[in-house]
């Protein structure tokens, strides 16, 4: 192959990466900018990170976001597991098709519509909006993803494995816990991290579902950016980015290790949605 073609390929790859990641890299780099101006490099500094620690509002929002992400990811993983079990185990029950559709609906539903629906619902039932409604909103948003991830893993399993466990004296629950659960554990971890990430960076649903006192980090950032960009926003965004990257990295690692163990193709992450928001 000629050197020209080879170089053209590398250049194409480089342009592609620049297109995808340059904004993120610039954002992260600028968080270490000593200057207050967003567009001018004034030397390396971590002062914005230090300032962040004194920004009560931002810290409070970060806590709200983390707490909401942890809670909603836990609930939605549990619900997703139950939904996936009922979709794979109970045969063709009468409302299966309806249930299948209902579980998967938020995948294709515009977030704004889902958020508005949630808001209408909370108002109709007279539920005061706050942390709890925020969690409910995020569970609604993320449960479809956890269900899909766990469903795929449950479907790939050999049903004879659990029968074998029962044949050897394990109760149905025991067989599930000892044989099925270890098999789908990587998918459950992936689902949890996915839900966590989705909840952490969600802005739309949170704007509808939450109330005063439970402002999430993305909401805070968004409202502050409207008043002008402070390098503190870059700093908190970089931290958020790092957290999401770590979570997704863990999910990838889990899938990869499992794939290497079982000699399968990594599929769980390929099903993950685009997280740019």
């Amino acid at each position: 192959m000629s050197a020209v073609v080879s170089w053209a390929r590398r250049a194409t790859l480089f342009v592609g990466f620049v297109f995808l990641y340059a904004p993120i890299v610039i954002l992260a780099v600028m968080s270490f900018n000593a200057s207050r101006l967003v567009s001018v490099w004034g030397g390396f500094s971590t002062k914005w990170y230090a300032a962040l620690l004194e920004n009560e509002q931002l810290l409070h929002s970060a806590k709200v976001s983390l707490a909401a992400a942890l809670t909603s990811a836990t609930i939605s993983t549990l619900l997703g597991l139950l939904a996936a079990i009922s979709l794979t185990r109970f045969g063709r029950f009468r409302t299966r098709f309806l249930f299948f559709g209902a579980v998967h609906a938020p995948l294709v539903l515009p977030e704004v519509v889902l958020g508005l629906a949630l808001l209408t619902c909370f108002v109709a039932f007279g539920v005061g909006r706050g942390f709890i409604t925020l969690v409910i909103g995020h569970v609604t948003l993320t449960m479809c993803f956890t269900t899909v991830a766990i469903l795929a893993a449950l479907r790939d399993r050999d049903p004879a494995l659990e029968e074998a466990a029962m044949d050897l004296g394990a109760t149905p629950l025991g067989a599930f816990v000892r044989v099925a659960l270890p098999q789908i554990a990587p998918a459950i971890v992936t689902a949890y991290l996915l839900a966590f990430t989705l909840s952490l960076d969600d802005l739309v649903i949170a704007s509808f579902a939450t109330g005063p006192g439970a402002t999430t980090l993305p909401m805070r950032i968004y409202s502050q950016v409207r008043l002008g960009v402070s390098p503190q926003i870059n700093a908190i965004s970089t931290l958020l980015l790092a957290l999401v990257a770590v979570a997704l990295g863990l999910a990838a690692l889990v899938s990869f290790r499992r794939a290497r163990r079982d000699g399968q193709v990594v599929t769980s992450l390929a099903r993950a949605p685009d997280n740019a928001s």
Partner: protein
Amino acid sequence: MSAPLLSVKSVSKKFGAVVALEDVSLDVGAGEFFALLGPSGCGKTTLMRCIAGFESPDAGTIALNGDDLSGVPPYRRPVNMMFQSYALFPHLNVFENIAFGLRRQGETRDAIDARVNELLAMTQLSAFGPRRIVELSGGQKQRVALARALAPRPKMLLLDEPLGALDRKLREETQFQLKEIQRLTQTSFLIVTHDQDEALALADRIAVMRAGRVEQIAGPMEIYDRPATRFVAGFVGETNFIEGRLDRNGAAALITEYGRIPCEPGNLPDGAQATLSVRPERIGVARDGEGIAGVVENFVFRGETTLLRVRVASNIVLRAAASHGERHAIGDSVRLSFPPGAGALLAEER
């Protein structure tokens, strides 16, 4: 035989409109090696799953040692199953797979260690305890599955096509191992297979099944030499079906358009339409003398014997096996002789 270990009485099972089992009854004795033989879809696997407890019969009873098993879940039945796919737990190593049933029984650590090591030795897997399942060959997986099912000392072991996934050479070797292990453990083995050679080679008794019904239950030799129905005769081994009318006067014989074929009349009446099933190797082939005249149309060398296709009438070809050393050419005239006990006489069906 003393009281049977397993007693299946008039068991029927339907899946929707499909009849999987219809009025199936059979007994399996303690320490017996019993085979359920039949083509796929004959209900043999369904019957096995009913015994294991994964399916419940619509009618009839299954009893073990005289205790009715209906309503007893699989995990409380003292029978274990070796699955066709082996169903080994991929997240556990070989040792833990075999120990699984023992741990559920709440045995002590020492007892489990001793029992698992005993089984590893029996299945020639002693060095493989810490291995992962994915690191095993097909034959090794098969032995782990066997050891795992035997570990909790079941009253009866169910084996679903245990040799199905192995290649030919390994299969024969494993047949001997399986027989040896059955003899050592004194456990009743109930094997499901569609392979007649496997059933004949392994089992003390065979139940031949067809479309949800049991056609015949007998020892391998009887199944082969005295098939009860045309289906059994055709499914187990090679055979000739000779149709004719029974003549009980003097030495009983079947009258066909090409001659009299001596046979044992059984309890069929004189003049009845009947079919005689004769294995090719039971037919004598000679160049001249007594017997049915025919012309060699084709032959296949099989090593031990040479299988001849002999045309005895314009529309009838019989297969006969000439023993080693006899040479025949296409177009040779031969005489086929039938010793009186050579075939099994079957009543005309329907």
